[in-house]
């Protein structure tokens, strides 16, 4: 594979799959906002 094709492949993988991994890590570390305003409770709907 040519150097330029390999470079583009690598950059795409790093940015896109890295973006997925990064966003999953960010979400796992802080799944919810701890400073939400008061209220907002939902009414449960039975299945």
């Amino acid at each position, binding site marked *: 594979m040519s150097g330029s094709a390999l470079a583009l492949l690598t950059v795409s993988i790093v940015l*896109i799959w890295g973006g997925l991994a990064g966003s999953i890590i960010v979400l796992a570390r802080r799944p919810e*906002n701890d400073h939400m305003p008061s209220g907002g409770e939902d009414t449960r709907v039975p*299945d």
Partner: protein
Amino acid sequence: MAEQPAAAPHTHEKREHWSGQTAFILAAIGSAVGLGNIWRFPGEAYDNGGGAFMIPYLVALLTAGIPILFLEHAIGHRFRGSAPLAMKRVHRHAEGVGWLHVAICFVIGLYYTAIIAWALSYFFFSFDLAYADDPAGFFTADYLQLGEAGTVSLSFVPHVIVPLVAVWLITIVILALGLHRGVERLNLIGIPVLVATFMVIVVRALFLEGAGDGVEALFTPDFAALSEPQVWIAAYGQIFFSLSLAYGIMITYASYRRRRSNITAPGLVVAFGNSSFELLAGIGVFAALGFLASQQGVAVGDLEGLAGPFLSFVTFPAVIAEMPGGQFFGALFFASLVLAGLTSLVSVLQVVSSALQDKLNLKPRTAAVAVGGTSAVLSIVGFGTTTGLYLLDTVDQWSNQLGIVAGAITMIAAAIWIGRRGHELERHLAAVSTIRPGKAWLWLVSAVALLLIYMFVDKAVSLLVDGYEGYPTWYLVVFGWGTVAFLALAAFLMPLLRWRKDIARFHPWPTREQLKLPAEVGERHTEDYDPRSGS
């Protein structure tokens, strides 16, 4: 807002919910990852600069895909309804925008089912490689029994209709089971299975002879292409269509999230998850095409059918016919198509079902049977015949390239330009999420709308002047422009019907006061908002 009641602030209407954040993320990825990821992205990238296409693609993801995804999630989550109801709550005259989304989903559901039905047939054909000898002839003559282009036939093809009925029955059952037991369970099982299956296919493809040449063909950059506006439009189009934007799906799915839910960070997982699958598919498809080219002793660029249905139902069967273990990998490939298609189809029809549930006060089961039953009959009559492929091609072109783009422009105009909800939605996202979108987000959304207006005009003029695929004018008027007329009629007429359920018992949360906004929409605000202050 006209519907703003004098009810207690914490009185909320009952609404189905996802069981958790993961369920929502998987369902949204299931919607976004569809047939277009497998057969549209590789061809678009290859035709528009190869590896260099990844630059506008990434720019489009960051400047259009994620901002519009956030907008839809914000509208659905704050205004908590199907697309028509949420848009009506955004602005009292914007209900029609939601019905435009619903009508697009209704039309797409009709033909998307047909493609899944073909894939289901090909899954079974893979066991004895029935398509191996002459993939093109098998698909067009033996399987579809294609009639003359630009004509309408009522000659039904039984072996297309049987899987079509099966797909409709499965879909109706999933929708009738409701959000939690139907849609959510399908995605909780289907998406991990789809990813695992596709990984097996891609790894196998990468070890085939000539695979490296195929991947090289896809990623060899043509940087000169970056100076062509059409390449950038293709990248924005790919991101736009691939992420299921402006169908009302993301509005509907976000409306099923609990109020106290993180919105932006899961949105990023959905956006990058969709692109990750797309990249995986691109690598796998072109590795397989490299193998086919090496077997035929030609260059990858000399192969035909590198995108669309012909990639899946003609070119890929040719690859499968040549590769060791073809039966197994053929079955895996078409099972992947069925799964990817089914999770997207269910999301499309959930938009229609949810809208009817809200407007006519129907239960999920009743709405599922009404939507599914009506759609199934129309789908079989339109796409179970010998001219179904041509109809599919035409309706897809007009509903996708014009309908969806119009759906996006009108949604942005209604929410940001006319409804003046931009700051409210930005502060809503900031209040409930862990990642604040910032004011630049609103600028990006408006800038994307301008690009979309250009894309809409460009495509409309091209279809008016050049026609499409050489089909006769009467055919394009009836089925192409007729589709657009149907979408417009739905958008104008459906808001005239009375809401059968009490939609007035609704208060957005967080309240405008909590978001430090004036009580009246559109009133100038000067107070800064710090989401960390809570209150």
